[in-house]
């Protein structure tokens, strides 16, 4: 209708602005689909924006995108589906139950019955911000971040859930762990949870 909202980022990148995660998913999906018409080296989604980087001429690409129609919403599950087996014994299960005013069993039930989507990656290679939690199930971060969170930790913060792909410091609330290997840098597709992937957490 109004075309894409685009901000120029220096000489070689543009930022497409979106209203929310659904709109980011739609824009990202369209940009990937029409990648051949663009000369971007990187197409990077985030919470409310998608970056196109490595362009020859940011202004020209900006003008091109402003002329594109609004991206169609992503309605069906089109990408890969990954099941993540989880042992729900995280140190912060009680804290999340307290924040939501439910039992720890309810936390596990909600987390393992929700279909999540990888909205974007960041923080560390293969660290996927997964959306899908109900709007009233936000989680406050820990006041004191941990100096080391083990690889495979399943965690919550803000509106997201994620699995730590490698050991790192971190302030997210830990609710469980998985043995699934999320980050395999020796492979051509090193991240198991790339943007657009559908994720289900399975208890046990």
């Amino acid at each position, binding site marked *: 209708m109004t075309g894409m909202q685009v901000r120029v980022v220096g*000489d070689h990148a543009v930022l497409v602005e979106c209203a929310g995660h659904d709109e980011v998913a739609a824009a990202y999906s369209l940009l990937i689909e029409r990648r051949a018409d663009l000369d971007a080296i990187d197409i*990077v989604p985030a919470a409310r924006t998608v970056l196109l*980087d490595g362009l020859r001429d940011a202004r020209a690409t900006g003008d091109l995108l402003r002329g594109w129609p609004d991206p169609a919403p992503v309605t069906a599950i089109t990408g890969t589906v990954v099941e993540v087996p989880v042992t729900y014994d995280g140190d912060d299960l009680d804290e999340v139950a307290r924040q939501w005013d439910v039992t720890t069993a309810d936390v596990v039930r909600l987390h393992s019955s929700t279909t999540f989507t990888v909205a974007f990656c960041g923080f560390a290679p*293969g660290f996927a911000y997964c959306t899908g939690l109900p709007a009233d199930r936000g989680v406050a971060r820990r006041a004191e971040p941990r100096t080391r969170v083990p690889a495979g930790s399943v965690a919550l913060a803000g509106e997201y859930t994620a699995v730590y792909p490698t050991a790192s410091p971190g302030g997210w609330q830990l609710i469980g762990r998985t043995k699934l290997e999320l980050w395999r840098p020796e492979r051509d597709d090193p991240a198991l949870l790339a943007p657009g992937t559908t994720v289900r957490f399975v208890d046990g």
Partner: protein
Amino acid sequence: MAEPRVLRIEDAGMLTTVQDLGRPGHAHLGVPRSGAVDPDALRLGNRLVGNPESAAGLETTATGGAFGFAHAVAIAVTGAQCEVRVDGRAVAWGAAVPVPAGSVVRLGRAPSGLRAYLTVSGGITVPPVLGSRATDLLSGLGPAPLRDGDELPVGPPFGEPSGSEAVGRPRPGTVELVLGPRHDWFTERSLRALDGATYEVLPASNRIGVRLGGPAIEWLRPGEELASEPMVLGALQVPPNGQPVVFLHDHPTTGGYPVVAVVRPDDLVVCAQAAPGDRIRFRVR
């Protein structure tokens, strides 16, 4: 009998890492681009010793370092203009230099510029990760920062060293900025003041970012939160204290603070080669 093709780190100096042209194209997976922060210097060094421009070399920091070769090689030192010695004998900077088997190449402290590149005929051939041999200090991809005694494999020579070419030297000075994408997060007064403002490079700077001290770039609405967004090389990110950081090659792929402006690509080397205490002057285009 041929000597093994090995480069031995005799003295890693302040920080020496393996660098090539990095691993762009993986930012959507949270992988920083990494690679030489003065890529033109690395490319030049590779051309001088007869390598493809993308071959891996060493990036030293501030203090230089010393590197031993079991076999005869050609080397070149580019980037920060430092003294270069082979077994104590002063040799040319910015040119291909033959190094006999069993010799030690020493890079001195650079009077100006921060990072020197040592390229070697054949290149450094540690196993690549995601298509690159670069050390990424943010995410830990690639070989760890080098320590005294480490040994690195060197490949067979690609071709004849090209000898010499006109060599640009690190230049101090003015850095041009393109405003945006989030200049509307800052006060008019701060944006006006940014044009012509001078900042000092702080000691906490590294390959992730050049931390600057100087006039605060004031947020228009203090306390407002920006949804995490993708970051680019050369972004001038401004945390709530108003003291900006220029993102270099190991920068995080996403960030939660607004970017007031982006450094023009041709001027980024000024930031990448600025040592703590150096001054950088901005001009807004």
